[in-house]
C-alpha cells in the first residue's frame, strides 16, 4: 500500500522565509481543522464503540435490567453489594486469580529458560524458535480443541500413562480440582512463544563485552546471569508481565471451548466467562454489568500498580 505512494520526501528548502508565527503558536483555525480531519474519525468511532458502551455498562450495573423482565428499576449499588456475598462470583474471582498468577509466572520463567537455551546463531536455533512461536499465531479455539483431545480421559496422554503402568491416570479436564490447572497449562503453552521471542530480543541487547569483562573478573555463569544479563532484561520482563496479565485476566475462549465452565458447577468459570453467561444466557444484564465493571476496575488497578512497580525497577537497576 505504502509502496504506491511517492517515496521521495520533498527536500527542505531554505531560501524561503518562515511564516510569521512560530511553530508553537499556530493560528486556531488550522488546529481545529487538523483535529477535525485527522483526529476526529478515530476518536469518534472509539467513543461510540468503546467509551459509550462502558458508560452504558456502568448505568446498567446500577439497575435490575433484564430484557425479558421489564420495567427497569434503579437499584443503586445493590448489585455490587450482592456480588461480594455471591459464592459463584467469589469462586470465579478465585479461579481468575489462580489462572492469572499461573499464566503470568510460568511462561515468563519457562520463556526465559527457553530463550537462554536458544540464544545461539544457526539454522537449528532459528527453526526451533519458529516452533515455539507458532502457537502464538494460532487461534485459541484451535489450541483449545487440540488440547482437549490430548488431555481427554481416553486421550493420547492417558493412554501413554496407562501403557507406562499408571492404573487410573488423572482426569485432566474432568476432575473439578484439576481442570483449572489443565486450562492454565494450555494457556501457558500458547503464550510461551511470545515470552521467548521478547526475551531473545532482550538478550540481543546484552553487550558481549560486559559478559566477557565479568568472566575475566572471575564471575561464573550464574553470577554473570544474575549481575549482567538479568538486570538488562528488565524491559523484556515488564512487557511480558503486563501483556500476560491483561490477557490472562480476561480468559474466556479456552474456558468456553474446553470445559464450558465445568466440570461440575463452575470449576473453571472465570469472571470473563461468568459475565457473558449471566448477561446473555440468564439475561441478568444489570448484574452481569456490575461484574464487568468490577472486572475493568480490577484490571485497571492491578495493571497500573504492576506497571509502575516494574518501571521503577527498570530505573533502579
Amino acid at each position, binding site marked *: 500500500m*505504502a509502496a504506491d*505512494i511517492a517515496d521521495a*520526501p*520533498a*527536500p*527542505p*528548502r531554505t531560501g524561503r522565509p518562515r511564516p510569521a508565527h512560530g511553530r508553537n503558536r499556530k493560528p486556531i483555525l488550522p*488546529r481545529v481543522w*487538523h483535529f477535525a480531519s*485527522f*483526529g476526529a*474519525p*478515530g*476518536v469518534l*468511532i*472509539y467513543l*461510540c*464503540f*468503546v467509551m459509550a*458502551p462502558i458508560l*452504558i*455498562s456502568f448505568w*446498567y450495573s446500577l439497575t435490575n435490567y433484564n430484557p425479558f423482565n421489564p420495567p427497569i428499576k434503579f437499584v443503586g449499588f445493590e448489585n455490587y453489594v450482592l456480588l461480594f456475598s455471591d459464592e459463584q462470583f467469589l469462586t470465579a474471582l478465585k479461579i481468575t486469580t489462580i489462572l492469572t498468577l499461573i499464566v503470568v509466572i510460568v511462561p515468563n520463567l519457562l520463556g526465559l529458560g527457553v530463550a537462554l*537455551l536458544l540464544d*545461539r546463531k544457526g539454522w*537449528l*536455533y532459528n527453526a*526451533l524458535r519458529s516452533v515455539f512461536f*507458532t502457537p502464538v*499465531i*494460532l*487461534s485459541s*479455539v*484451535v489450541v483449545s*480443541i*487440540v488440547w482437549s483431545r*490430548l488431555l481427554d480421559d481416553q*486421550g*493420547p496422554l492417558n493412554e*501413554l500413562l496407562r501403557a507406562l503402568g499408571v492404573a487410573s491416570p488423572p482426569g485432566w479436564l474432568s476432575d473439578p480440582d484439576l481442570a483449572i490447572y489443565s486450562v492454565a497449562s494450555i494457556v501457558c*503453552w500458547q503464550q510461551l512463544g511470545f515470552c521467548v*521471542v521478547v526475551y531473545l*530480543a532482550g538478550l540481543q541487547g546484552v553487550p558481549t563485552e560486559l559478559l566477557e569483562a565479568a568472566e575475566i573478573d572471575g564471575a561464573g555463569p550464574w553470577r554473570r546471569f544474575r549481575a549482567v544479563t538479568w538486570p538488562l532484561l*528488565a*524491559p*523484556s520482563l515488564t*512487557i511480558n508481565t503486563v501483556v500476560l496479565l491483561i490477557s490472562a485476566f480476561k480468559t*474466556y*475462549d479456552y474456558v*468456553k*471451548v474446553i470445559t464450558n465452565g465445568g466440570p461440575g458447577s463452575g470449576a473453571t468459570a472465570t*469472571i470473563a466467562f461468568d459475565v*457473558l453467561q449471566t*448477561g*446473555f444466557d440468564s439475561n441478568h444484564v444489570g448484574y*452481569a*454489568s456490575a461484574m*464487568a465493571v468490577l472486572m*475493568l476496575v480490577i*484490571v485497571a488497578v492491578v495493571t497500573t500498580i504492576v506497571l509502575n512497580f516494574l518501571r521503577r525497577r527498570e530505573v533502579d537497576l
Partner: protein
Amino acid sequence: MSRVRPVAALVVSALFFVPLYLVLANVFKQGDLIAKSPASLPMPPTISNIHAVLTRPDGLFWVSLTNSMVVTLLSILVLTVLSAMLGHYLARSSKRWTKVLTLILLAGLMIPPQVILIPITDVLRITHTMATLQGLILFNVGYYVPFGVFVFTGFIRSVPVELEEAALLDGASRMQVFWRVVFPLLRPATASVLIFLGVWIWNDFIDPLIILGPSQGTTITTGIYRSIGQYQADLGSVFALMFLATLPVLIFYLALQKQFVKGLTGGATKG
C-alpha cells in the same frame, strides 16, 4: 558441554511440538483411526478429510473463510488509515487536552471486551448493524484503534516536523503532506499494525460469537467452534477444518516472519 545445548534444545522443542504434531498427523489420517490411535503417523496418508471439508454441502468452510477475509481485511485497512491519522494529530499537537485524549485512548489497551459486549449489542441495534459483518468491523475498529494509535504516535514523533513544514511551504495541503511525505516513512509501524491486528482479528473468537450471533453466519473461529458440536463422530473433519483455517495466517506469518518478530520486540529493546 557443546553437545548439551543442541540436544537439550531439541528435546524441549520436541515436547513442545507434540500438540502441533497431533494436528498435522490427524489431518491426513482416516477418520476411524483418529479415535483409535491419535498419536500414530498417518499411514497411509489420505486427503479425504480435507476433501470432505472443502465440499461440505452447507459450504461452512467457504462461507467462514469469506467472512473472516472480509472482516479482517476491511478492519485492518480502516484501522491503519484512522489510527495513522489520529496518531499524527496526537504526535503533532502539544495541547494539554491531547495528552488527556492520549491517556483515554491508551486506557483502551487494557479494557476487557466483556465490559463492552453487553451494551454493544444495543448500540449496534440502534445503528442497525447488529448481526452483520459491518457491525463486527465497526466494533473491531473501535476496539483496536488504541493499539494502532499506540504504535503510530510513537513512530510519528521520530519523524522530523521540518520535513512536513517544508512540504507545507511548497504548497502541499496537510492531507497531501501526510499521505505523500509522512506515511511512506511509517512503513515499519504500518507493518506492525497490519500484522498484529490481522492475526488478532483473524483469530478473534468472542466478538464474532456475540456480535454475529448464533444464526447469522460464522467466521473461521466460530465456524470451528460450531463444528465440534456437529461433527462429534467425524474428528477427521474437525482437524482438517482447523488446519485449513490456520493455513492463511500461517502463510501470512511465514511470509512476514522478520517483520513479525521486529514488531513484537520493537518495544522490548527500546525499553
